[in-house]
């Protein structure tokens, strides 16, 4: 089922959680809402579920063609996985999963044996069939997470919403569950939206990523698009590491760090101060000037533990910066502490200096 929300705003007292947010999710898609805490991502998710009501004047919330904005959450048929799972602690795993079926009105309720079969099938799907009679307190975090997912899937939701699904787990379990969830999604193909503040999680798992900041959507795109073609300065700095230079745009050239960088795409930009971002791996590092446009820097330290060497540098113009390069290349060129090097950016992002 597709989801469309239009012009949603939400305020809590003085705090503005969402400002005029619009988003559409295609059928069967897996979407990540990514942003720092307070960016409004969880509020947006809770509004889709019906757990919060948008401010008056907000637009519709459409599931397929139907506006559900005024519908109660229990008739929206959304599967919701809470950050801390919200498992019923007085019920066993199987009872938790069966809950949504057992509370149906009698005429819609499956028979006891049918419920048992459905529960079993779901527990197998989340690989917990051996734990059916345990209580939530007897499970590990990752297992609780999977129970929460099975419980949400039991009502055959048309939409699956997950709030920081891996937020409360340790790093190793996170990785495993992440891959598992992707495979599960490919298998059952239910339209899914999950909230995360972890960029790796969003970029690895989602079909499309919605980057949010201060109640607004900054960019919507595939992981490739948001990472390589960030639309705003916020997206550039939020996804991955970047080096910042203060420079100017003049006549189609970007001036920064003693460099005048030809940038046809900024030809139309009026002359003004700009902020220039270059990712650490987007530099070509040479030991000698070789004719390419480059600026000079001195190596302060070399961190060589890992597949890439990470160089801590000071540019001639005074900026500190990080550069990443393959370790073997670094060794072959004999780059060590104190070496002078010449840096040629491969890709730069330029944004007008904000007025403040």
């Amino acid at each position: 089922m597709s989801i469309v929300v239009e012009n949603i705003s939400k305020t809590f007292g003085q705090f503005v959680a969402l400002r005029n947010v619009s988003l559409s999710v295609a059928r069967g898609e897996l979407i990540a809402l990514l942003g720092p805490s307070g960016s409004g991502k969880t509020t947006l998710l809770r509004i889709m579920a019906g757990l919060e009501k948008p401010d008056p004047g907000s637009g519709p919330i459409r599931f397929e063609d139907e506006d559900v904005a005024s519908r109660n959450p229990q008739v929206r048929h959304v599967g919701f996985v809470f950050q801390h799972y919200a498992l019923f602690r007085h019920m066993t795993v199987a009872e938790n999963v069966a809950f949504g079926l057992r509370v149906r009105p009698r005429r819609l309720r499956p028979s006891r044996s049918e419920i048992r079969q459905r529960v079993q099938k779901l527990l197998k799907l989340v690989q917990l069939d051996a734990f059916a009679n345990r209580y939530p307190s007897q499970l590990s975090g990752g297992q609780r997470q999977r129970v929460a997912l099975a419980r949400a899937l039991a009502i055959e939701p048309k939409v699956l919403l997950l709030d920081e699904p891996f937020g409360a787990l340790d790093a190793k379990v996170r990785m495993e569950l992440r891959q598992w969830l992707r495979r599960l999604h490919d298998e059952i193909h239910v339209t899914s939206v999950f909230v995360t503040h972890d960029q790796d999680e969003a970029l690895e798992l989602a079909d499309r990523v919605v980057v949010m900041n201060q109640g607004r959507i900054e960019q919507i795109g595939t992981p490739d698009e948001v990472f390589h073609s960030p639309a705003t300065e916020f997206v550039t700095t939020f996804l991955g590491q970047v080096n910042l230079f203060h420079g100017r745009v003049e006549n189609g050239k970007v001036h920064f760090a003693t460099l005048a960088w030809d940038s046809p795409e900024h030809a139309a930009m009026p002359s003004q101060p700009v902020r220039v971002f270059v990712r650490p791996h987007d530099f070509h590092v040479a030991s000698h000037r070789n004719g390419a446009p480059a600026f000079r820097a001195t190596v302060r330290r070399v961190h060589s533990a890992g597949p890439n060497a990470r160089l801590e540098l000071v540019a001639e113009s005074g900026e500190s910066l990080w550069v990443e390069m393959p370790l073997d290349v670094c060794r072959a060129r004999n780059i060590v502490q104190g070496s002078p090097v010449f840096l040629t950016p491969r890709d730069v992002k330029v944004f007008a200096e904000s007025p403040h």
Partner: protein
Amino acid sequence: MLIGGGVPSALTGFSASSAVTAERPVVRWALIGVAIVFLGLFLVIPLIAVFLQAFEKGIAAYFRALLDPDTQSAVRLTLLVAAVAVPLNTVFGVVAAWAITKFEFAGKNALITLIDLPFSISPVVAGLVFVFLFGRQGWLGPWLEAHGVRVIFAVPGMVLATVFVTFPFVARELIPLMKAQGTEEEEAARLLGASGWQTFWRVTLPNIKWGLLYGIVLCNGRAMGEFGAVSVVSGHVRGQTNTIPLHVEILYNEYNVAAAFAVASLLATLALATLALKSLLEWKVARQLAETDAKP
């Protein structure tokens, strides 16, 4: 106020093993000694005394006192009063705790303070306000008299006074418990299609059952044992408006000390049962709260 909110010793587990945070053995045993003597003098000896005094004139006299018709009618009235007051305040406690812990609204703290109010009012004043409300010279008294309804110096007044003094017990046990448990489980139930009632019966109630029972036990103990408030509105009509505590007073004032203690031993047994149940339930509630806190 947090009377009754004892800390089960099993759960506080302060490790005094570290040498720098432990007192010297002399100091430790001296403190333990002081505590035991103090508690012995003020708690243990009085408790033992109740039962020894009750049997002072022998077992036969003990049971004669209990089987006396006046005692019997006092027991019946006490049970009646509790049977009205406890369910009323139980329902109220659950309803109030739901409103207070599941929703945000202005004036919530003021409401909690008002619910606690009967605790800070002297039982005698609690009885008196009902005399002023329903008594012959009271606000509604003349109207009631014209309709032949008697509240003061009669059973209805005693029930009302008891409802007043036991008013906060259930609510104040549930409010902190339900606050700590939050609303996520209820939200999950709603999203899975449960109706409001289903959510309450299947999710909320099982989660609060020990805390609820604990509140009911405390409420019942006070309802059956209340003296001051009930005394003011009762009129002391023997065999008609005597509850057990009032009957104890009458027997004692008639210098029938052994019989007074025999009847008092019923209430002391009730108090001991309340304490035992309380310890058990407190332990269960603490465990439930610990599970709530142990978020992975």
